[in-house]
């Protein structure tokens, strides 16, 4: 039975949370505003079939940028996610390319059957961009999409992308359009960190890319955890730990060949880091790849635990659940002892 929590110690200082627009950018980090919205506007200029659709979250998914530029190509479906995805299927059946937005929890949980049946099964060309992936809201489990990747990658026909930063999102948007068929993208919104422009990196659908090499540890990561992995690699180099980072933005189809090849290089601890429950996401997908390929290496997972996560301030929660920079560093060091 559910019991309520003990009362907090009122004498201690506390961090507070911003409900929906807490930034994942750390202080002083370079960011870019609304990369998805601006990239979609850019795409739509040359693709007249692109339309925007949302379920009362245009402002919170950066679709408002598109809506302002193309009001007559924007469809507000109200706070009705089942309708949103059913209607997107119908729109796609008439030859349009809907970019639909809501929060990841509502797409993956509330509207799952609508996406499964009207979009994936019918193989409609609908693009689904979902804000607040994994633990990027301190609002509580209602808005924490800890399991969205597991749900979406289990769906036949669905392509699943978990981009790292603003630089990548700008490239993912046209790549989604170039791919014929349904795509689910985890959306980082608002002031989005800018990281990968410092690396020699191009997004390619279905490709994992080695961002840096290292002899001791291989971190395989997606989404914002690639940013953490790169920061952790820098921090760990001070301790003479040499960390490689393999970025896997496409969760499905998974680049099994690159993953097996990189993980198969001997002598390294393999750590999969994801902003997602350890159940059914990148970690277990990689484990499956390695088992099938006969790659036997020390293997660890960094990810959200299989529990309903707390409400609170994001930095607190990222620490608590092990996906903050300091926790990634601490855990990797611990495993190397």
């Amino acid at each position, binding site marked *: 039975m559910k019991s309520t929590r003990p009362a907090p110690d009122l004498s201690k200082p506390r961090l507070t949370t911003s409900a929906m627009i807490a930034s994942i950018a750390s202080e002083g980090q370079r960011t870019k505003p609304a990369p998805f919205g601006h990239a979609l506007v850019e795409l739509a200029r040359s693709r007249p079939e692109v*339309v925007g659709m949302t379920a009362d979250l245009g402002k919170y998914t950066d679709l408002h940028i598109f809506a302002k530029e193309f009001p007559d190509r924007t*469809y507000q*479906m*109200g706070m*009705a996610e*089942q*309708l949103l*995805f*059913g*209607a*997107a*299927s*119908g*729109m*796609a*059946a*008439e*030859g*349009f390319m*809907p970019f639909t937005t809501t929060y990841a929890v509502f797409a993956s949980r509330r509207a799952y*059957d*609508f996406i499964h*049946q*009207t979009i994936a*099964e*019918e*193989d409609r060309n609908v693009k689904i961009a979902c804000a607040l992936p994994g633990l990027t809201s301190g609002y509580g489990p209602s808005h924490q999409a800890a399991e969205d990747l597991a749900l979406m990658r289990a769906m036949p026909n669905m392509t699943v992308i978990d981009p790292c930063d603003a630089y990548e999102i700008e490239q993912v948007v046209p790549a989604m359009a170039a791919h014929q068929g349904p795509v689910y993208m985890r959306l980082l919104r608002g002031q989005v960190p800018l990281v990968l422009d410092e690396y020699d990196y191009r997004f390619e659908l279905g490709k994992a890319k080695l961002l840096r090499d290292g002899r001791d540890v291989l971190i395989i990561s997606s989404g914002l955890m690639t940013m953490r992995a790169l920061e952790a690699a820098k921090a760990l180099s001070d301790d003479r730990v040499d960390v490689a980072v393999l970025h896997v933005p496409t969760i499905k189809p998974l680049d099994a060949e690159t993953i097996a090849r990189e993980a198969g290089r001997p002598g390294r601890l393999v750590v999969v880091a994801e902003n997602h429950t350890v159940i059914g996401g990148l970690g277990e997908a990689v484990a499956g790849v390695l088992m099938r390929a006969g790659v036997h290496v020390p293997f660890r997972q960094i990810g959200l635990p299989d529990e309903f996560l707390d409400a609170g301030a994001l930095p607190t929660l990222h620490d608590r659940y092990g996906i903050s920079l300091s926790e990634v560093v601490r855990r990797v060091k611990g495993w190397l002892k």
Partner: protein
Amino acid sequence: MDTVATRLANAPTLAQRAYNIRRNALRMGKVQGQGYIAQALDISDVLAAAYFHAMRYRPEDPAWEERDRFLLSNGHYAIALYAALIEAGIVPEAELETYGSDDSRLPMSGMASYTPGMEMSGGSLGLGLSIAVGRGLGLKRKASTSRVYTLFSDGELDEGSVWEAISSASHYKLDNLIGIVDVNNQQADGPSTQVMGFEPLVDRLQAFGWFVQRVDGNDLDAVVAAFDAAKTHPEPKPRMIVADTLMGKGVPFLEQREKNHFIRVEPHEWQLAIAALDAGRP
């Protein structure tokens, strides 16, 4: 001599079309030894009026851009729609005997990727009207004059998504949408009005901003008139036809059978049902 005049004079009447649809459905039920045959029989008049009076399509080109779209939301009515698609010449009659068997294009529940003329994958109930809203919006974007017909069942009125779609269709003034709800008052657990009451349905739909007509769905003249009115109604509203129907219509011993969502037809009864239908052949 084959002239337009003689072809028109020899064209089957709507009553004959409805009979043929019922007969096709019974033949498929006989192949499988099962099927939602009572629903197929109740909706055959609506399908006859839709395919042979109201709708625009080309049998030889089911994806013709100018066609009217027909969405089957209640996918378990596929046996009825296949029967109509066969009668319309969209699906070859020879495939009738494959119904529900391996590698058939006529699976028991309607799916878009299997069957020519099948516009959506139903089965999971309450999907059709949401898709119809997107289709209606898309057609308007293209300045198309095609219409979206969506057949769904009274049981689907239990699904919240149906009402999401009903709200949005009137919000967007989708006058190119014609919904048909089959009120046969039967769903999986019993009479629909007892499972979850939906009356007064006309008032409710009107309150949501739809142009609503309620007709005897087994009265061909009434159904034809309802489609005509739905197509020509001047207000910028989506249109709904509430069709009260009789499960098993056209086969007296099935009409009288104890009402169940999935009525039992014994193996020897399929031929008897066809014979009973033939006895009333128009």
